[in-house]
């Protein structure tokens, strides 16, 4: 049987693409945290550093990420549809013992993340949500050159309650998705046993919590006026 039509094979593809996105999320957060000033020049310098890479590398990276997201969404929807029919009729009494809110709602938290992804790219990558604060059209000096004002764009965005709210809400979805997803990755890859699994579940939830706290701090501190432009 083809890997991509088998039950475990598709699960493995979901797990690898999911975990690749987790790695991306960790690196993305580390980069974004330059907004708090630990890098000389802040997030503007970090953004400039990324954009000064050769175009083929940037586009290649974006294409790989896009492919990863597509594979994850494709099999996520396919497996969920198959599984919905796995128990044709629900039991009269619902008595769930081990499943969690997070594990039962992966498709919904995942869908929220997909919607958020579109919004987030439109907001900060394509910069079409608030064109007047778009970084690409507002250059500021950095060292001895003029660079896009990413800091200004982010701060202007998160001063708005609804924008901050959307980001914070999406991060709740991310926390739920990953509190199940990270440990699920290890189980699906077969990298867990009865002794390691309880630890993996705890650490996975902690990593999900860390990502949640790290990401929400940015809109939160800006909206509260602690982090200023």
């Amino acid at each position: 049987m083809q890997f991509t039509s088998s039950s475990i094979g598709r699960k493995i593809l979901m797990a690898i693409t999911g975990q690749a996105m987790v790695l991306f999320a960790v690196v993305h957060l580390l980069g974004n945290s330059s907004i708090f000033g630990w890098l000389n020049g802040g997030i503007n310098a970090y953004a400039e550093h990324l954009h000064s890479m050769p175009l083929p590398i940037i586009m290649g990276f974006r294409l790989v990420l896009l492919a990863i997201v597509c594979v994850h969404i494709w099999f996520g929807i396919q497996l969920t549809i198959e599984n919905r029919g796995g128990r044709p009729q629900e039991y009269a009494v619902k008595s769930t013992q081990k499943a969690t809110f997070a594990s039962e709602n992966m498709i919904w938290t995942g869908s929220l993340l997909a919607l958020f992804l579109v919004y987030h790219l439109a907001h900060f990558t394509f910069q079409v949500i608030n064109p007047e604060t778009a970084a690409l059209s507002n250059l500021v000096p950095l060292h001895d050159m003029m660079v896009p004002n990413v800091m200004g764009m982010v701060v202007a965005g998160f001063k708005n309650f609804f924008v901050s709210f959307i980001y914070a809400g999406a991060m709740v979805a991310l926390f739920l998705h990953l509190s199940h997803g990270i440990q699920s990755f290890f189980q699906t890859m077969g990298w867990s046993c009865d002794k390691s699994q309880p630890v993996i579940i705890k650490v996975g939830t902690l990593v999900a919590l860390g990502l949640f706290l790290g990401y929400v701090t940015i809109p939160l501190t800006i909206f509260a006026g602690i982090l200023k432009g």
Partner: protein
Amino acid sequence: MSDHKTMTLTLIVWRQKSANDPGKFETYTAKNITEHHSFLEMLDCVNEDLIHADKDPIVFDHDCREGICGMCSQIINGAAHGGQERTTVCQLHMRKFKDGDTIYIEPWRARAFPIIRDLIVDRSALDKIIQSGGYTSCHTGGVADGNAILIPKAVADEAMDAAQCIGCGACVAGCPNGAAMLFTGAKVSQLALLPQGKGEASMRVKNMTKTMTECGFGNCTNHYECMAACPKGINVKFIARMNREFLKAQFA
């Protein structure tokens, strides 16, 4: 008998004449039940009353009544085998209930387990999984030859833990996706761990998981409900081991 307090219980039981009948819940009263009755003996009492009243008895699967054959199969108040840890329905006793309780009794519900009648479902899909690879075809010799193959105790113990599976299907019934990963994982692991089974390990895991999908079982999403439902305490580490075997088999 006089010093035995008895209980009266309300049973809400799934009744279905055949696979094509839509089925519905019926309410019955179980009278004169003592705490020493097993759950199946309690149903025997109800069935006797039904027969005396010229009604159809409740049809349910059972055989050994000592927790080893895997025939008994009921969802009791939403939990497979009644939800008591490591207990089959036949080993569940009425002391777990109290006078006046209302108990819902349903059949295993899964796409791959069509209902035959009332609480009996067709579990032959599990046999199909076994037929597609749950065996070894190499000559293993007589008893003495078996003892000549040295197997470290830890490995033998692990294989025995997997071999505890009695094929009842509670894992499928407990899984929201109707997946058979715990059953198949236990069978794949039990053989893959031992030298006699290693030779065919990659063919086995590919074929058994393929049959699993063909029979209409769902895919695992790691809820671990199967492990909570299993009367033999089969651990989901055997699903992880099967996933590992599956990955290995891609390169074999």
